[in-house]
């Protein structure tokens, strides 16, 4: 779709083309998650339906119940399930802590990166621009493994030089999440910044505001929807992440997706369906807000 509208306008001058590219990018940014969710729908619908199934069996529908949701919260669990509310809540807690901290750091750095990409003027800019996309396009498993290698190299080095032994844990998980989240935040914020009239910052400067005050009084309020949108996206990705977390968490740190994975290895219980449905709900709401904020026009109240 994007390429087709480009082909139509390609002869009509550069400005037109740039505008089209930008528009296509914007549409793409909204469509891309939609497509992803579309292909996820089929299995997910099954999962959601069976989370209300009044039967331990995953195969047949026996009527509606909220029992599994109750089990998650109350801990009253059937004999053969190994589900523990306590462990689940502790995993959820870890997930939230990781997601919050990683989002916070990634949002600050990602915003700064996008500022430097849009407003800055330095030789290596296009390189930085390209590198920014890397975590979005390379396979997550590659990212996870390379982070693992990176951390162990550093820990080895620290171990041999200082004798201090460090092992992976919540810190490495947070760093891993920050790494991929920076890209997502920067991409979302950059779109917003590129939309903003650059004369606004010049006007502020003209009226006596130094760069710091210009940022906080003019730029920041105008790109705030983009920043929030990026942060929500980062938060969701962080909450849902399994691969990077799994590879870099070490023994002690269990996030919710890792916990669910552990449960599934034993057996698929309806509680997992219910829990997954809740996670899905949370993610959808967060992404929905994020997209709504992205859709709002920059430069308008």
């Amino acid at each position, binding site marked *: 779709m994007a390429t087709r509208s480009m082909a139509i306008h390609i002869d009509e001058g550069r400005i037109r083309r740039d505008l089209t590219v930008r528009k296509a990018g914007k549409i793409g940014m909204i469509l891309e998650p939609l497509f992803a969710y579309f292909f996820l729908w089929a299995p997910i619908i099954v999962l959601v339906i069976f989370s209300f199934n009044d039967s331990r069996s995953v195969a047949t529908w026996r009527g509606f119940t909220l029992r599994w949701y109750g089990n998650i919260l109350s801990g009253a669990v059937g004999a053969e399930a190994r589900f523990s509310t306590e462990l689940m809540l502790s995993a959820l807690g870890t997930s939230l802590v990781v997601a919050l901290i990683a989002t916070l750091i990634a949002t600050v750095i990602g915003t700064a990166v996008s500022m430097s990409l849009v407003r800055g003027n330095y030789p290596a800019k296009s390189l930085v621009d390209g590198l920014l996309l890397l975590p979005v396009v390379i396979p997550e498993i590659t990212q996870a493994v390379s982070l693992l290698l990176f951390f162990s190299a550093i820990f080895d080095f620290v171990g041999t030089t200082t004798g201090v032994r460090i092992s992976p844990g919540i810190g490495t998980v947070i760093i891993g999440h920050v790494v991929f989240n920076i890209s997502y935040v920067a991409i979302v914020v950059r779109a917003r910044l590129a939309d903003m009239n650059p004369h606004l910052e010049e006007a502020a400067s003209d009226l*006596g505001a130094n760069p710091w005050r210009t940022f906080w009084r003019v730029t920041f309020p105008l790109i705030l929807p983009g920043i929030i949108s990026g942060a929500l996206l980062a938060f969701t990705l962080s909450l849902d992440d399994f691969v990077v977390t799994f590879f870099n968490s070490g023994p002690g740190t269990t996030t919710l997706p890792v916990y669910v994975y552990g449960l599934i290895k034993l057996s698929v219980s309806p509680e997992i369906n219910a829990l997954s449905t809740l996670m899905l709900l949370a993610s959808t709401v967060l992404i929905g807000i994020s997209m709504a904020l992205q859709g709002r026009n920059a430069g308008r109240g």
Partner: protein
Amino acid sequence: MQQVGIEIKNVIKEFPARRGEEPVRAVDNISLQIYEGEFFALLGPSGCGKTTTLRMIAGFEEPSSGEIILRGKPVQGVPPFHRPVNTVFQDYALFPHMTVLQNVMFGLEMAGVNAREARDRAAAALEMVRLKQFDRKPRQLSGGQQQRVALARALVKQPAVLLLDEPLGALDLKLRKEMQYELMQMQEELNMTFVYVTHDQEEALTMCDRIAVMDRGKVLQVGRGNEIYETPHSRFVADFIGETNFIEGKLTAINGKKATVVLPGGVEVEATPDQTGTSLNSSVTVAIRPEKITLVHVSLPTDQGLNARVSTAEVMSAIETEEDRTFVPGTIIFSNYIGTDTRYTVRIGESSTLIVREQNFGNFKDITFKVGDQVMVFWATENARVLIQ
């Protein structure tokens, strides 16, 4: 008045080459002196470097070489927020997330003025531009109102210099005329230096004390409006400001303030030579404004025609007594009635044509000319100028 407020010395601005392109020399070695309290215009066609010049004064761009001096102080490296200069942007650049009042207060807050005083001063500035919608957001205002907010926001800081980049460009004609008048009044009242960028020659002539005509990064001529209009030094300036006839010919004699130019077909005309000096027998252009040319019938009209503005006999006697006029026989080939004037196209000599504007005084149909009429065209020699091409 004659104290220099802004001095621009040999300023060049070159933008670095984009991939596969030549570097752009947006401003090519310009020097200007703009006086305190002056309403100064930068006039030129699109892309001639007006905005770039303004942006260098404001501090958004640094010159590649040369120097800008504001009130005696070189401002190289001084960031915009430390310059005693405020700008009215072409697109107004109002802060969309702030109300009108907050927009105008912004500059005062940045200067550390306390909130109450800032509010009062902002309100006063808005009153001056006759705007009452303090609590609206910019997007709830019309173009003209936004323009006023932009003006108030820049004026409230009482800068030494106000830079205006085509501030009326987006307004319709009527509002534009009104705003022109208001800006002129305001400039006089505040006694501020205005540097006004426009590509509209009429606007520059109407509003400004002095005009710098720019083309392709260069300043071609600086002067008061009438100087530039009456004595353009180059074909570009003559052409850009107002309407001008250009007739090509060969310079055959210079006699003091009179140059003789022979047109194709052997017709001789007289004009004032350019100061820069023109060598004999070179190809030259004679520039003359359409309204400076007078037409008379060669064959005298009958009795009815004599109660015209000037009787033909009077004209003929004027022709005989005054020496500094040039007469050329011609033929009307086109006539175009445009209300206050009639524009005639007159062929003279072999291939030259002149546009002549005759004002439509009163109701004397007899003296108007018809296509095909044989006429005598004349002008005061001082009004025709020889330009080097």
